[in-house]
């Protein structure tokens, strides 16, 4: 990405500790508007914690997090989150429509406009015709789409996603990946994507942050030189895709010692 652009989110010397345990240490990075940036690393190295930091759900113990130049003091509506645990992150007593509506209600969108926005968002996430279904009546993939629809209802500038496709089957996963890329291309929303899956990270991202554990710190930031639009087959057969995959694999493996 161009370095001339001012960063949308920047972290300067950020530490996070819980009691005496340091979970993240000395984080320094910037996220630019419209980019897709992934974060990978061993389990428990602090990926979710970094996302909560960016969301404003968690205050740093040291250093500063800023959004468009101003320090982050709490959650903002410009930042939407898609939680890993979709089964628990939806309101079980509201239908698909109602769950999307929640975000619009909070934004103060008036009733009639809300209806059309909901239809739009459900159609966008491939849930048209499922307006009246309760989360419990939906498959995992549908629930995750619904979470995405709700996040998009916030009309966010930044979308924070915590292993959003982790628990889905391979086919659903791939189609959601493509829809996400499509969304990013159309709306220009910034995406911060936590994942365990290295191929997924490469496929989606412009850059990948590799975290090292104990305490969580940045090991390397990888640039992804692959062209867009991407394609499940062609992109994944690309030489640089395979090379990057190798590099990332060695990085994560190496970090486990």
């Amino acid at each position, binding site marked *: 990405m161009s370095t001339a652009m001012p960063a949308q989110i920047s972290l300067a010397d950020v530490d996070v500790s819980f009691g005496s345990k340091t979970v993240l240490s000395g984080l320094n990075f910037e996220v630019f508007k419209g980019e897709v940036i992934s974060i990978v690393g061993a389990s428990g190295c602090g990926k979710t914690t970094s996302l909560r930091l960016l969301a404003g*759900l968690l205050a740093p113990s040291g250093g500063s997090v800023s959004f468009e130049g101003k320090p982050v003091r709490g*959650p903002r509506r410009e*930042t939407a989150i898609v939680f890993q645990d979709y089964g*628990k*992150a939806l*309101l079980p007593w509201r239908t698909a429509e109602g769950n999307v509506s929640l975000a619009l209600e*909070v934004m103060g969108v008036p009733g009639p406009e809300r209806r059309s926005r909901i239809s739009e968002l459900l159609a966008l996430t491939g849930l048209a015709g499922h307006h009246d279904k309760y989360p*419990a009546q939906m498959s995992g993939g549908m629930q995750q789409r619904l979470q995405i629809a709700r996040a998009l209802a916030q009309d966010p500038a930044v979308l924070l996603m915590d292993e959003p496709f982790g628990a889905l089957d391979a086919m659903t996963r791939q189609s959601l990946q493509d829809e996400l890329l499509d969304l990013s291309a159309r709306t220009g929303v910034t995406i911060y994507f936590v994942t365990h899956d290295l191929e997924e990270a490469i496929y989606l991202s412009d850059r990948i942050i590799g975290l090292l554990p104990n305490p969580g710190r940045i090991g390397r930031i990888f640039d992804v030189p692959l062209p867009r639009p991407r394609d499940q087959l062609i992109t994944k057969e690309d030489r640089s895709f395979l090379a990057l995959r190798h590099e990332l694999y060695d990085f994560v493996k190496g970090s486990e010692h």
Partner: protein
Amino acid sequence: MIRFTQIASFALSLLVALALIGLWHFVASARLVPPIFLPLPEKTFDALVTGMQNGVLLDASLATLRRMFFGWFLACLAGISLGALVGSSQKLRIYVAPMLETLRPLPASSLIPLFIAVIGLSEGMILGVIAFGALWPLLLATTHGIVSVEPLLIEVAQALAMPKHKVLWKISLPSAMPDILAAMRLSLTVSLILAVVCEMLTGSEGLGQWLLATSRAFASTKMFAGIVVLGLMGYASSLIMNLVEARALKWKSAAN
């Protein structure tokens, strides 16, 4: 198929109920039990119809129904709001939750003399007793329901920068709804019991007073008619709560 077995089992259970009434008739007419203690079912039914037609039993029933409902309504208002307050504030909970838990097993009826002492024998006293007694299940259930909201949903709300009162209204209370509805059902039962007890104690018009008066006069058929009305009230309130639950908790049954 499911419909058929449902209808069949309903028919069977209705048949059994009718057979039991037949048994009642047999036992009573054969005088296996003195008729004072067990009048004939058809005589009980006659007493019920007469009492409703001449209005005496009807008025008593309506008086009891009114007390039960208003007392319960007050209990719902107070219990749910207090529960929401205690449930939303960790600080408040540390100070008052143990006290509330300790007070819970105290039978509401034992407080009637205290209420009489403070308020005096009046309609307000009766409503106060019912509301106070029926409030506990609601208070504790609402608190419990709100405390045990899925933490992730609270984060969802925070991520939307939802103000606190909206979190309560849109997340915590709906999520506590199953607990609250169960408590509303229990409170309705408690309200009916307290209404009857208060009527027995104060002699105010109502089914409690009707039962005592008819039993003192050994008017068993009238007394049984009163018991039947109370049973019907209990049954009806349970059915209404079933309907309310089925509607309000549609999302729960939707899973299957």
